[in-house]
């Protein structure tokens, strides 16, 4: 994080003395404010060396997701932006309603949920379904547990799983080919519905594999933000370098998927897709980099993070290969979320011996 602050300081010094750069000064200051404000440090123990808080944390995650968001507009037209706006407005109303009713401060946690949620939906999802999903996600995924920081499950995934079981037709059979070449989606609002199948769906139903290059660049049908592996990796690396996401979780999750699909292709070649394809296709990278690393629902101890990723990988490969759903990242993360407190507890007990419980 220090190198980022230093380079921004240098940039701000550079622009400050040069009035001919016009608005550049303000732009640099704004970026600095987004990432580094507020500057208060913790007043209570434990004292932190860096003054990172929820707002700064969430702002950095949003920056990390920007490449995939821009790609979704390029691939699927401006309707992608409309879905994000609907998600922010509808979910924001639910969030603010609850914070007002409980007389609490409005936290910034929703900024991340509000943008991650539309990015994991099919591009043709009707806007009212987006609104229903984000409201259910915010209320049942977060507010019933007490609000930001208390939720067991990732709120965006709760909304997504509710939509999957409630509107099966809209959510799993309306995939479209993305637009490519030239301005692609930048000149269009949306795509005329030509149904198609995701790479994982094609493998599950017909046993055919899509080329790795297409899957890597993202010119394949899929959810809004998950298609381009390249841009997700760029955003994910940003989060890892700024230490917002712990590198252990994506590494052990992706490693475990690679290992188990490598084993699986020997045992059940018709059901388990080959490792690199599994890694790049579907929502795995999105889930591993942006969902599984959510600090509220992931374990906090280092040992538990490795175990968490291992189990996520086993679940994802199994669901993809042996269930009725071609994709299993969403279900695996929600299922394993339940066990994060248990994993933490086991690591602590192993390290320090049985912990005296604060309750009887």
């Amino acid at each position, binding site marked *: 994080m220090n190198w980022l602050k230093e380079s921004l300081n240098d940039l701000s010094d550079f622009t400050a003395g040069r009035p001919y750069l016009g608005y550049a000064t303000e732009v640099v200051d704004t970026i600095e404010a987004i990432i580094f404000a507020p500057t208060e440090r913790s007043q209570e123990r434990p004292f932190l060396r860096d003054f990172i808080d929820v707002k700064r944390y969430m702002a950095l995650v949003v920056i990390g997701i920007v490449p995939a968001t821009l790609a979704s507009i390029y691939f699927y037209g401006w309707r992608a932006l409309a879905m994000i706006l609907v998600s922010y407005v509808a979910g924001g109303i639910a969030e603010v309603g609850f914070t007002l009713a409980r007389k609490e401060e409005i936290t910034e946690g929703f900024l991340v949920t509000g943008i991650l949620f539309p990015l994991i939906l099919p591009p043709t999802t009707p806007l009212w*379904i987006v609104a229903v999903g984000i409201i259910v996600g915010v209320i*049942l995924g977060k507010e*019933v547990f007490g609000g930001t920081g208390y939720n067991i499950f990732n709120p965006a995934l709760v909304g997504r799983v*509710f939509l999957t*079981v*409630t*509107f099966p037709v*809209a959510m799993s059979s309306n995939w479209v080919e993305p637009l490519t070449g030239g301005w692609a989606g930048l000149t269009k609002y949306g795509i005329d519905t030509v149904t198609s199948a995701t790479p994982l769906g094609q493998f599950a139903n017909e046993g055919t594999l899509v080329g790795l290059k297409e899957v890597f660049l993202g010119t394949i049908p899929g959810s809004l933000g998950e298609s381009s592996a390249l841009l997700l990796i760029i955003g994910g690396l940003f989060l890892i370098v700024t230490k917002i996401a712990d590198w252990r979780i994506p590494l052990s999750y992706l490693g475990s998927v690679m290992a188990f699909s490598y084993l699986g292709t020997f045992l059940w070649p018709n059901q388990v897709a080959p490792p690199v394809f599994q890694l790049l296709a579907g929502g795995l990278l999105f889930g591993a980099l942006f969902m599984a690393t959510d600090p509220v629902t992931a374990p906090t101890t280092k040992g538990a993070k490795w175990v968490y990723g291992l189990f996520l990988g086993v679940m994802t490969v199994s669901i993809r290969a042996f269930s009725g759903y071609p994709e299993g990242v969403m279900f695996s993360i929600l299922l394993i979320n339940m066990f994060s407190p248990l994993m933490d507890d086991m690591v602590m007990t192993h390290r320090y011996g049985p912990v005296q419980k604060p309750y009887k």
Partner: protein
Amino acid sequence: MNNTTEIFVNGLWRDNPVFRQILGLCITLAITNRVVNGVTMGVAVFFVLVASSFIVSVIGEYVPRRVRIPVYMLIIATFVTLVYMFLRAYFTGLSQALGAYVGLIITNCIILGRLESFSSENGPWESVVDAAGISAGFAAALIAMSVVRELLGFGTLFGINVLGSGWTPWVSMILAPGGFLVLGLLVWIERSISPVEEG
């Protein structure tokens, strides 16, 4: 508020079997995907509970304590069989929709619980009022749940289309997950209106 009204309101709201005592959930979750099922089940439980409460309150003191549960079961089973046969004879479709759940009223803990805790210790009039209040509360809960579930799941009420033909059915609402979600939300609402006093 005199004694009779108080007993009735207690059963309907403050001791509501579903929202407050969290009893009888097997039936509540299973049959509330249509309003007509909810109403039928509410009426059936009303009949069984009021009738068996009355009998138990009358004969209660003559039943030896050790065999009281089998005796209660016998009384309940008699009335449940009557309801079951009545439904089979006059409302065949409904009877098939409710399936085994009419028979399962026998083992419904709401009924046995009321007989054990109230009717066996109170006079016939109080027992009947209490049974009416509790089963009215149960019916109200069933109807509240089934209105939400049928409206969202089918877009209809009593089978009549109310939300227009363009309504996209919320499939999960007529399946088990919808039952659990709606029950949880209604319990939440009920307890927000009148919070439980922690004893």
